[in-house]
């Protein structure tokens, strides 16, 4: 499986945070844009409503406004600027009054009077046609059907987005006519932009028109100075008060905070989504890795099982081959013994019956070769038996003297046969028990092998066998074979107990290469050890230690165990 490099937790957190922050900023900007757009649309709608409402309210409050036509004088300075002078908040209204129009009783414009040429004294008298009842209703206020009508711009008198207010001009229960006021929606809109706030005119402006107690007269014209003097908006005998209400701008103030909060929430949500997404991706990756690991484990398990089966099969086959080889070697060894016996026997017969020394010497050579072959076969068989675990060790109490005498005789015979100038010496420690617990056959096999090697290696000097006890309680039997020969070569001493290792430097000592290996295996089979060392004064020493063989026990039990 390919292991992808993954950022650590901190790096991932920073990345998610950055993405979340970016997302929040984008959300904030988008929110602002949307809010701005919505606000703009709403403001445009509000402006229209505002103008409409304003006009309605204004006319509703002015519906009883009586205009003393005679009191009106055409004064360019006065010319409706009075409203502007009265309240700056109404400047858009007043400043945008384009003029007056005369309408008949049906509301049809019969003449338009630009403000530059407007003359109330003459122009408004032409408006008439209202009934007495309606006039009374107008005077008492609150009659809707005589409310000033608001009409969209018509004809060439108005331009752009405007509303036209038709104000009845009544004097002495006589409708003198109506006054037309044109209001520019654009100015309303811009004013609304400059001071955004409530969407309803009632909330934005307080417009009130009260009937002035002062009787309307056609007296002197009201002048701006006069208005200022009374302190109240006096319009043709009525007070008109228009003040700007403080806008309810909470939303406007809160909107950025809300947007910011929205951005923060969006950031948090984005971060959470990022974390969840990362977590999910991690989970998916982990799951994929887990599945991959499981697949690998399954594959390895199958491979392991196959390998185990192959190993078991191989081991079984190897065991079968080893057993087969052991059987073959055992069979061959046994089968070879019979013809080998015939060969050796014939050579012996020839030796015994030879007429001449030459024939006798040749027969002895053949007999020696046959005997060496016999030893090789025996050692191979023994080695195979030990390695195959088929060696049985049978320990019993044997008289110490019997062993020592046997080895002394063997040593004497070997020396005599080798015709070396060697002294044989066998010593037994005084504290050694009379009986030792050993497998006599195997111990003798080891000792005789050591003696044979020692005699072969020693042409003159001494070969000595020592028996003593050792161990904390003196329970171990120690048998040493010491010679005064050349010793063991340094490069050979470490491998002297390995099978099939020959001492090339000493052809005389060359044999099967199994004697010492078998001796060590036999020692181990008897829970003992066999070691070799060179002596400082020359010669070699082999030490056989048999555990619990020198313990003082009178029992003559026999123990068998497989080695």
């Amino acid at each position, binding site marked *: 499986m390919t292991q992808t490099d993954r950022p650590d937790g901190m790096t991932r957190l920073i990345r998610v945070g950055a993405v979340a922050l970016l997302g929040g900023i984008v959300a904030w900007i988008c929110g602002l844009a949307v809010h701005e757009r919505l606000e703009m649309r709403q403001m445009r709608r509000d402006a229209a409503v505002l103008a409409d409402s304003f006009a309605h309210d204004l006319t509703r409050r002015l519906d009883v406004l009586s205009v003393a036509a005679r009191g009106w004088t055409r004064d360019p300075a006065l010319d409706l600027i009075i409203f502007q002078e009265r309240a700056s908040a109404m400047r858009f209204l007043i400043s945008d009054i384009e003029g007056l129009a005369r309408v008949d009783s049906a509301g049809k414009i019969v003449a338009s009077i630009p403000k530059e040429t407007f003359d109330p004294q003459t122009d408004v008298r032409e408006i008439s046609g209202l009934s007495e009842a309606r006039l009374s209703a107008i005077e008492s206020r609150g009659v809707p059907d005589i409310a000033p009508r608001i009409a969209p711009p018509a004809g060439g008198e108005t331009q752009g987005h405007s509303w036209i207010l038709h104000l009845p001009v009544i004097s002495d229960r006589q409708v003198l006519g109506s006054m037309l006021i044109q209001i520019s929606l654009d100015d309303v809109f811009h004013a609304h932009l400059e001071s955004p706030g409530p969407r309803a005119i009632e909330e934005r402006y307080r417009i009130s028109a009260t009937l002035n107690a002062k009787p309307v007269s056609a007296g002197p014209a009201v002048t701006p100075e006069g208005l200022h003097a009374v302190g109240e908006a006096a319009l043709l005998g009525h007070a008109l008060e228009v003040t700007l209400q403080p806008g309810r701008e909470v939303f406007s103030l809160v909107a950025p905070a809300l947007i910011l909060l929205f951005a923060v929430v969006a950031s948090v949500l984005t971060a959470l989504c990022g974390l969840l997404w990362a977590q999910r991706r991690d989970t998916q990756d982990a799951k994929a890795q887990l599945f991959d690991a499981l697949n690998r484990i399954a594959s390895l398990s199958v491979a392991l099982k196959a390998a185990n089966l192959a190993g078991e099969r191989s081991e079984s086959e190897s065991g079968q081959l080893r057993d087969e080889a052991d059987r073959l070697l055992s069979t061959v*060894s046994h089968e070879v*013994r019979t013809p*080998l*016996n*015939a060969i050796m*026997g014939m050579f012996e*017969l020839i030796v*015994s019956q030879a007429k001449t020394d030459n024939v006798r010497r040749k027969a002895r050579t053949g007999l020696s070769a046959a005997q060496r072959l016999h030893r090789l076969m025996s050692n191979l068989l023994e080695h195979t*038996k030990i390695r195959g675990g088929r060696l*049985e060790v049978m320990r019993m109490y044997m008289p110490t003297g019997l062993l020592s005498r046997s080895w002394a005789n063997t040593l004497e015979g070997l020396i005599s046969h080798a015709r070396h100038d060697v002294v044989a010496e066998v010593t037994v420690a005084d504290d050694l028990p009379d009986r030792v617990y050993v497998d006599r056959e195997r111990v003798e096999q080891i000792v005789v092998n050591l003696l044979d090697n020692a005699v072969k290696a020693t042409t003159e000097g001494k070969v000595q066998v020592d028996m003593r006890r050792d161990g904390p309680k003196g329970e171990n039997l120690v048998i040493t074979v010491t010679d005064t020969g050349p010793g063991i070569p340094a490069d050979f001493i470490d491998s002297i107990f390995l099978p099939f290792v020959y001492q090339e430097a000493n052809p005389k000592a060359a044999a099967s290469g199994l004697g010492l290996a078998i001796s060590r295996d036999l020692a181990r089979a008897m829970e003992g050890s066999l070691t070799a060392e060179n002596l400082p004064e020359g010669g070699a020493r082999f030490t056989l230690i048999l555990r619990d063989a020198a313990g003082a026990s009178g029992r003559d039990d026999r123990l068998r165990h497989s080695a």
Partner: protein
Amino acid sequence: MDCLIVEDDNDLALTFEACLVDQGHSAAVAQTVEEALIGLRDFKYDLLLLDYGLRDDTTEAVVDYAVTRCPHMKTMLITGSGVFPNGEAQRYFPGLDWILRKPVPLADLLAFVDHAEMSLSRDTGQRRVHAL
């Protein structure tokens, strides 16, 4: 001394036979169990040298028949077989006197033969004394 050699290997049988004859003994050779049983039935031998495994069978029956047929006869098993690696043959051949491992040096073989001859002479002498 009359010896019966039960050995299926012709060369070894000839070697043993030559060795014994050279020492003044008489020797016959049987190479199968059947031949050995027939020889024991027809003639009373003093010494029986036999291998364990022959071509047709193993030689337990030969030993059993020999000790029954000729109680005084000395029996010597000479085998190279690994069937009895630790001397167990004595348990399965109660009538055996000696067990030797191939290859047997002829000097050792002759020593055993001499020993058997002496034992046989002593036994027969005792019998003669009893007869008298």
